């Protein structure tokens, strides 16, 4: 159980980052890998709580955190890997990009710095790859059933692996050239290098998952055809429909969705060809609208492309500043100001900013108009409402505007409309135990829940695989 009183003896050590002026010259990961040996004491800080909040309330995939922390402390790295693998197909993804709600719900977070759970997770899986412990686990026998999985993000990948391991023939369809979903075409390399995905795909291939890339289901291939050829279909197409900003001047050139921008950047880094016009921030004044993670990724990417200056505006109020190691809202996710590695690379952030309009020169954006707003608390059951601050209007000269205001729902392409699966109030595919309204069609991940997190997509992918398995083997 870690070390009794280990948390009093050892301090938490934070993840280290490469220096800003060095890292801005490339797209390599900004973090510096710690070896597992460096984390032994960190594992010893784990108290193996009788009620492990990290595991029950924190980690969406219910990782067996105390068990692998303890194994680390005892130097049993292989055991740690084996315990980790039970719940998480791809710890190398979560160990890099997960916001780690496990740590904010760690019992130590009540009044102390939490265990370095995410660092530990990452170190365990990297050790496992180094040592060759990550090997294909093909099924012992085939069931003779087949499943088509549509969309190759973390949800689709996890589901494919689980289904294949259960003995089903799995084909994973992806409209892009390569597998990975937002892991590949959304999240920048400096957070997640793409060879990390490739490395894992080797395992999936060896286990017998078939990939069909460059195929847009619904366009290039019909659902009816798939229903003919496969016993079950799983929709893991993500929540690709971005939220728009319907203000005057929106149609101007130079105003783009964050995803178009980030996707292209990732392709360029990977030397992948792309058809659209090149988008670059080089020498430009860049405004990112939207204060979330996607926006932060735009900031880091723009900095690397050589932007002159980067602004980031958020319409919501500035969250509380909190510099203590513990969590003021334990065990829940705290609403506090977060400063990402990208923000530290240079960016001016502002909150409570409403965008009014854009104006342009020769059809290209040159200026944006804004004003400050104030949020009025809502009454019982009503949302807070906003009110303009009088006389607060201001404008900003800009060359490139990136809209990173989140996603509204799954794209309503023919894959969704042809079989007419029922949608929920927000436009995502409705499901009960991952079964859509159409028998034999299942769904998981962002397509089902709306935009969320990699770890949730993974978890739902796994659970959907289980639901499909039960249905197939009925």
């Amino acid at each position, binding site marked *: 159980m870690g070390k*009794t*009183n280990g*948390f*009093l003896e050892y301090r938490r050590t934070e993840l280290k980052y490469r220096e800003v002026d060095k890292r801005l010259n490339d797209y390599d990961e900004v973090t510096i890998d710690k070896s597992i040996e460096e984390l032994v004491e960190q594992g010893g800080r784990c*108290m193996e*709580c*009788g*009620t*492990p*909040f990290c595991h*029950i*309330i924190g980690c969406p995939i*219910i990782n067996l955190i105390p068990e692998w922390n303890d194994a680390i402390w005892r130097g049993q790295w292989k055991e740690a890997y084996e315990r980790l693998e*039970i*719940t998480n197909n791809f710890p190398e993804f979560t160990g890099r990009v997960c916001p780690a709600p496990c740590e904010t719900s760690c*019992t*130590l977070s*009540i*009044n*102390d710095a939490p265990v370095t759970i995410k660092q530990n997770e990452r170190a365990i899986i990297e050790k496992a790859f180094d040592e060759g412990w990550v090997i294909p686990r093909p099924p012992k026998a085939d069931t003779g059933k087949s499943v088509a999985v549509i969309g190759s993000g973390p949800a689709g990948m996890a589901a494919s692996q689980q289904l294949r391991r259960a003995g089903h023939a799995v084909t994973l369809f992806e409209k892009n050239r390569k597998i990975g979903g937002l892991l590949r075409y959304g999240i920048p390399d400096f957070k997640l290098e793409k060879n990390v995905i490739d490395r894992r795909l080797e395992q999936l291939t060896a286990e017998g998952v078939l990939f069909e890339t460059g195929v847009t289901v619904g366009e290039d291939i019909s659902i009816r055809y798939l229903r003919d050829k496969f016993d079950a279909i799983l929709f893991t197409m993500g929540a690709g429909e971005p939220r728009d900003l319907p203000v005057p001047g929106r149609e101007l050139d130079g105003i783009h969705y964050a995803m178009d921008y980030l996707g292209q950047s990732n392709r360029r880094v990977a030397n992948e060809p792309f058809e659209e016009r090149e988008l670059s921030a080089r020498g430009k004044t860049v405004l990112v609208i939207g204060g979330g993670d996607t926006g932060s990724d735009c900031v880091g990417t723009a900095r690397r492309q050589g932007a002159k200056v980067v602004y980031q505006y958020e319409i919501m109020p500035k969250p509380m500043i909190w510099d203590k190691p513990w969590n003021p809202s334990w*065990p*829940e996710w705290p609403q506090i100001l977060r400063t990402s590695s990208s923000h530290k690379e240079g960016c001016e952030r502002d909150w409570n900013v409403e965008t009014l309009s854009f104006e342009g020169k020769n059809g290209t954006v040159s200026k944006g108009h804004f004003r400050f707003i104030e949020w009025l608390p809502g009454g019982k059951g009503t949302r807070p409402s906003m009110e303009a601050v009088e006389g607060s209007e201001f404008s900003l000269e800009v060359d490139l505007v990136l809209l990173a205001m989140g996603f509204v729902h799954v794209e309503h392409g023919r894959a969704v409309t042809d079989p007419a699966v029922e949608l929920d109030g927000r436009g995502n595919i409705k499901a009960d135990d991952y079964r859509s309204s159409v028998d034999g069609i299942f769904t998981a991940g962002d397509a089902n829940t709306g935009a969320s997190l990699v770890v949730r997509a993974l*978890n739902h992918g796994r*659970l959907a695989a*289980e639901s499909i398995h039960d249905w197939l083997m009925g």
Partner: protein
Amino acid sequence: MKSDRHLFSAEAIVAMQKAVRNKDFNSFKEYSGIINDRARGLNTLRGLFKFKKGHPVALDEVEPVEDIVKRFTTGAMSYGSISREAHETIAIAMNRLGGRSNSGEGGEDEARYPLDSDGSDRKSHTKQIASGRFGVNAAYLANCNELQIKMAQGAKPGEGGQLPGHKVNEEIARVRFTTPGVMLISPPPHHDIYSIEDLSQLIFDLKNANPDARVSVKLVSEVGVGTVAAGVAKGKADMVLISGGDGGTGASPLSSIKYAGTWWELGLAETQQVLVMNKLRSRIRVQTDGQLKTGRDVAIATLLGAEEYGFGSAALVSLGCVMMRACHTNACPVGVATQNPELRKRFTGKPEHLMNFMCFIAEELRGIMAELGFRKLDDMIGRVDMLEVDKAVDHYKAKGLDFSKVLMPPERVDGEPLRCTSQQEHDFSLSLDPELVEACKPAIEKGESLSLDRKIRNCNRSVGATLSYNVTKKYGSEGLPEDTITVNFDGSAGQSFGAFLTKGITFRLKGESNDYFGKGLSGGRLILQPPLDSTFSGFRNIITGNVNLFGASGGEAFINGMAGERFCVRNSGATAVVEGVGDHGCEYMTGGTAVILGPTGVNFAAGMSGGVAYVYDENQLFDTRCNLEMVDIEPIVGEKDIIRLKILVQRHTGYTDSLVGGRILESWEESLPSFVKVMPIEYRKALEKIRERETQNTETTAITEEVFV
């Protein structure tokens, strides 16, 4: 592998803590919803019950929260198993509500007895008397309004059964009258209770030691508990607690129905039935505890026959406990169940949190009362007819279980009520103390010395307990200056002569004594010698019965003659000289000194972890009679030991005209080699360490961490 969130619900902990911190009843309902669901799902018997339809009354007609919470208590959690901060916060909260908190069996710091400047009362108003008698002295008994005898829990290791040495820091050792760093063992039985008559004697002792407190007996819920409870009622306890064995700290959730025997539901139902059928219910109150967590739990307990309710782990959760179950490691990260000063700083519980918890429980209970149509809780007690088995709970474990016995309304002979409606009649007519207290007024009120002569008969029991109570009420455990009150008794003393006798009082008895002589001696002096005209010589005859000086914590006893079995068991500070003892002498002793100037029985010093004994081993048989598991036997060579021993023998001879003593002193140099010293091994180590520390002369606080971790 489907994710099954099955551990003790973390969600429930979070919801409850939110509720009590923000005084948010909605959060609380969320908490109790989770708990009640889980109860249905698997874990408890009450989960299989449901309420029958009643005739609802309006909520505002139901008795108010403030009245209900007076029936609430917190479980016995000893100071030692939980931190000082947690223990005092619990006490303050319960005292503000007019309920009670329970000291547990760890003694209590006297500094908590007077009220704080802001009027807060930090003392536990239920003081527990367990088999270990740790920290039980006259002051402990005097400062509360309930004395609770904790009956042994059989084979089940009970809370506080053992306190590992590393948890026994200086402060804890101080309030328990033991040595820092030495493991504390609560012996399985009470050495003064082997029958219901013995129990009744202890109840009587306690009634005398604090006439203003009620006496309760804690029983563990098990099959047959009803019969024991009936005995307890006949033994004149004012309240009986049927405990489902929550264990307070670190309790694991009940997970299997095969342990049903330990659940309070069964024990309570049985107790209620036996008490009512034997026409005993009207004179004794019934309390229950053990995983009570919601208003629904309390409602069921009420219908099954309880009028008071205790909360253990739920109370701790309200103060920040996150069910780490690290209690035994001393590493509780929220400062609840730890003695580590670093971790204790992390305690953030406030009395208000626990008060909110209790009030929310009461509020929930009121809701159920209104629904069932009870305006007064009194009317609801024992109404099992309002309970039925919930057919909807389809649990494989519940199949084939027959609850008709549990839910059977008892036959009410002569209209015996279903709850306590009167009081026990305690008979003090043969007590000498009321008269002694009167006669000693000048001493108690003005500190004047006085000496009295009194005749005594063996029907006069617990003599001195109430006198000590009166002294202690006024002077605390410091008592009066030595020999302020001297009483010379003549005759045959009844049981518990000199019980809990406090400082400044000397009882000299010429004659003989029954069992329990000097029970719980708290600083007073007892001198016992044969009548002047007696023809027998003391050292060949038993002059006092069994179980002398049991649980003594201070004071002196000089006995010219032999004592029976179990002499000085659980002594933690008294000094005694005697001329021979029966079996099991000095068992479980943790402190003090015993000098035995004659033969001992077998099993001497079993479980002895502190204090010393000097034994005059003329025939060199002692090592065959001593239990050597925890002690060493050594010759007496140290200067200090020799002087100490000689002074004690001299005083003994002086006080009692002892022939043996006189003979030994006459030939001191020759006699000395016949003495052996019995020294507990762990105790020696701890003393050495303390001495080392003291000679290094560093900050005293370090002792706590350094010596014993």
